[in-house]
């Protein structure tokens, strides 16, 4: 047998054995230990991760969180999921997407709110089976905000004018370059009210609380963990240990290893983040505010995407 033929045969045999062993292990349930998936929800909750290196890429894109939930749900060794929440909220759509995915999971899910689990993050927490929060954490904040900076007077001061060219009278509603008309204000407020109502309904259904009670609580105010417990917005005060004990009892298991389902950060991510932080601090101030206003007009013109 020639040299390279021999090498190929050896490599083929090795690959085959490795492949067969891997398939055997994948199919053998008894070898897998019981595990608890810990999925972090940190920072602003968005629909997708930003690819703009000039802005902070931290946060929790719904695609990433849902992907982690999918993986945990499919993995038979995962007996329960803990959502480790430390987020001030996020966009309506992203929060709803995550909340809807959670409702389809066939395993117990516990939310553990660390410092902050407010607004959209609380919406997500409310759709889990049980909420544990630190006594001094910030929760609730059931409300919708669509506020934005409007620069028309500042522009006027510098001789910059907004040349309005629209097809459809309401096309530039929410543009930061002009003041809202009473009609536009009314429309935007109606939409915000609608989102708020939907938010209140979701929390009321998820937590099995009276709608009117949630509406009263849902004035946008945040509550400390202790207050939230009294109001029925959370189930228990505690830390990660309590969350682990609760998930074990819900999953009816004695021992389980918590496994972080955190997104892995590569060297390119780290370099991009470093660049983003540097750029942010260099350009911080009014220049940054103006720049972000110019750059992302759609952010302001589409009030439906605003944060809850």
């Amino acid at each position, binding site marked *: 047998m020639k*040299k390279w033929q021999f090498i190929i045969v*050896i490599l083929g045999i*090795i690959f085959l054995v*490795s492949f067969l062993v891997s*398939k055997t292990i994948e199919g053998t349930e008894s070898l897998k230990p019981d595990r608890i998936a810990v999925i972090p929800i940190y920072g602003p909750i968005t629909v997708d991760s930003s690819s703009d290196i000039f802005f902070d890429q931290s946060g929790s894109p719904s695609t990433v969180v849902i992907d982690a939930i999918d993986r945990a749900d499919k993995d038979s060794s995962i007996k329960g999921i803990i959502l480790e929440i430390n987020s001030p909220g996020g966009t309506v759509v992203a929060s709803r997407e995550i909340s809807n995915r959670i409702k389809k999971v066939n395993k117990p899910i516990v939310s553990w709110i660390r410092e902050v689990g407010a607004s959209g993050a609380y919406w997500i927490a409310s759709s889990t089976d049980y909420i544990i929060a630190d006594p001094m954490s910030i929760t609730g904040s059931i409300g919708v905000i669509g506020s934005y900076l409007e620069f028309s007077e500042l522009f006027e001061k510098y001789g910059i004018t907004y040349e309005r060219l629209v097809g459809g009278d309401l096309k530039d509603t929410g543009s930061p370059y002009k003041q809202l008309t009473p009609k536009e204000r009314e429309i935007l407020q109606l939409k915000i009210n609608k989102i708020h109502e939907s938010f209140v309904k979701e929390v009321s259904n998820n937590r099995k609380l009276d709608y009117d009670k949630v509406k009263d609580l849902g004035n946008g105010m945040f509550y400390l963990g202790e207050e939230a417990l009294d109001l029925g917005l959370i189930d228990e005060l505690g830390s990660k240990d309590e969350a682990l004990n609760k998930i074990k009892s819900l999953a009816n298991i004695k021992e389980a290893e918590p496994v*972080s389902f955190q997104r892995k950060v590569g060297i390119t991510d780290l370099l991009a983040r470093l660049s983003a932080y540097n750029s942010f601090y260099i350009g911080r101030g009014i220049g940054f505010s103006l720049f972000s206003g110019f750059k992302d007009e759609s952010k302001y013109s589409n009030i439906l995407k605003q944060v809850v």
Partner: protein
Amino acid sequence: MPKKVKKEEIKKASIIKRVLAYIIDSLIITLVVSYPFNNYLKSMNITLKFTDLFTTRLTSDLYIIFFTIAILSLIYFVALEYYLKQTIGKIIMKIKIISLKKEFKISQVILRNISKVVDILLFIDVIYMLLSPEKERLFGKLSKTQVVLK
């Protein structure tokens, strides 16, 4: 069977060539041996990184995976070195192994390669190589083999 090699005939391979050959072999092993386990390790949220050995609780399935990878890696080195005197890395770097004894036994090849699949032995081996005046690995010396230019 090879004749006993006289010392003066030996043209030792440099450390750089040997290290490069080892890196090439490691890449091939990663591709052929470790790749099939990737999906499973990914689902377990574990990558095949050295640091995972310290941060991951080794459960029965992980023991099996690491053991399989170690054994198959050893088979790669032993089979190729015993029958061809070269691995793919050594072929590319134009180096080969020879026995310093009359015979060339499989036990010699196993001994010279055992450190490549056991981390702590590899560490000892590399330290020994860097400190020894002949720049030879400890397990290469113990097995009475030598890496030479082809």
